[in-house]
């Protein structure tokens, strides 16, 4: 699958899967996850998101991924760093 994203996002949500349970929000150590207030998915849930401006702040701890019961989150990391 093509891994290319328009903005170099580190935290990508499958918004259609998201049920807005907010469990990812609480668990992020750098507090960058929030619930989208401006949209709903087709099931009527407001999805979680990391705003573009905060993507950089992600420390790749994977806590959100671990916590998400609906497996909505894909995480990326810069290649160079390691």
């Amino acid at each position, binding site marked *: 699958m093509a*891994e290319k*994203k328009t903005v170099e996002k*580190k935290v990508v949500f499958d918004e*259609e899967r998201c*049920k807005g349970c*907010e*469990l990812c929000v609480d668990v992020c150590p750098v507090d960058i996850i929030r619930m989208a207030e401006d949209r709903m998915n087709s099931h009527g*849930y407001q999805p979680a998101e990391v705003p573009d401006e905060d993507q950089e702040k992600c420390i790749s701890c994977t806590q959100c991924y671990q916590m998400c019961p609906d*497996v909505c*989150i894909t995480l990326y990391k810069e290649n160079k760093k390691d």
Partner: protein
Amino acid sequence: MKKIASYPDSLTEKHFHYCPGCTHGTVHRLIAEIMDELDIREETIGVAPVGCAVLAYEYFDCDMHEASHGRAPAVATGIKRVHPDKVVFTYQGDGDLASIGTAEIVHAANRGENITTVFINNAIYGMTGGQMAPTTLEGQKTTTSPYGRNLKEAGNPIKMTEMLSALDGPSYIARVSVHTPKHIRKAKKALKKAFQRQLDGRGFTLIEVLSTCPTNWGITPKDALNWLEEYMMPVYPLGDLKDIEEVE
């Protein structure tokens, strides 16, 4: 950019039907990741329970066999005896495993049936709308314990996992939880060990997972995680209950 965490191959694309925040989904992911990591998706037959996970066969991307309520260990036994070289697991709720299916789990465990059981203890009957389970806590209100579980009438929350550990057949039995990322990682480790034991032909393994049912507990997903930690964990302490390291 390197992908460091993403949707496992061993899950289908279907969206889970579970309620928001329900940890059934978490455990599904862990099992799928283990199938990926052990490369056993094509060797695995999962047995789905009757309970909220009744549709598990829509999510796990391996062969799946539905059981009747509580009888997953018997169904799994039938499968495993025909295909001793395949990986067979059951995924069962606390009503399924600890109530109606008591005889089947006890005897599969005692026979040392070489299968892995994932036991989701959420202290309630989720699917049927929140009745008391044998694992429901003292005083916990459910639709069939409207005044709170009364130990005199209904007995103590049953310690199925402790009880099964008293048998000779099981090779590995542990209780884990999925209410924090750390516990989730530990849960995965235990689950993986159980599957590995099966691959090594070491007999029956069971992992009890303390889980949430925000819907029928009537609280938010987040509160549910706290409730699990505060109320369930003291009654159902985590850890390895049985671990037979070497054989013969």
